[in-house]
């Protein structure tokens, strides 16, 4: 079975500083990895994904994530945090056993990111 772990329930960062939200994964075979963000009173929104290719992937709102196979990690990063980045962030992994077309995801427990003005 595949799983993801988000070791930090809460991350606080000062506005303008770089931020990192951690994620590690466990899968058999090659992982498909994702980050989603949940703003208050809003639905989950896709942020970025790693399928194959370049280990550094760029996504929405200036976020990026680095796939590290040896460390089985997929940490989310941003060079300069904004107050508007405050939200709940979820790492997710795609079930590689699922049939083509079934894109069900296994989510982590989430990390609440708070950017302090």
């Amino acid at each position, binding site marked *: 079975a595949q799983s993801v772990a988000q070791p930090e329930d809460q991350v606080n960062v000062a506005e303008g500083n770089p931020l990192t939200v951690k994620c590690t994964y466990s899968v058999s075979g090659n992982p498909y990895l*994702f980050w989603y963000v949940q703003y208050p009173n809003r*639905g*989950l*929104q896709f942020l970025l994904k790693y399928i194959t290719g370049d280990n550094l992937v760029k996504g929405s709102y200036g976020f990026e994530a680095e796939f590290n196979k040896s460390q089985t990690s997929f940490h989310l990063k941003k060079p300069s945090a904004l107050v508007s980045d405050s939200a709940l962030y979820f790492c997710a992994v*795609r079930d590689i056993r699922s049939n083509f077309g079934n*894109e069900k995801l296994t*989510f982590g427990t*989430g990390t609440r990111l708070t950017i302090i003005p």
Partner: protein
Amino acid sequence: GAGVSQTPSNKVTEKGKYVELRCDPISGHTALYWYRQSLGQGPEFLIYFQGTGAADDSGLPNDRFFAVRPEGSVSTLKIQRTERGDSAMYLCASSLAGKNTGELFFGEGSRLTVL
């Protein structure tokens, strides 16, 4: 519509009652997913529809939970004999099946409270 629409946004019911939650996916999205998110947890997969059929219902917790999508668009999640442990946010998502993008489009959810 422009996005995934879920109704009701909030539902309060009593233990033992029957509940229906509705999801209207993005027009043209043939794949539809239901997830359940308990407080402090990530979303947990319940069921996946490809068109009208439930292609994967491995996440349904027990036979009190059932979902339909009779015309391949709107879906209804049905919960019989509700229990307090069913209290959670129920999320619906849709996607363009076959594109293999991994991008799911989520609705804002239906919060179910069982008293």
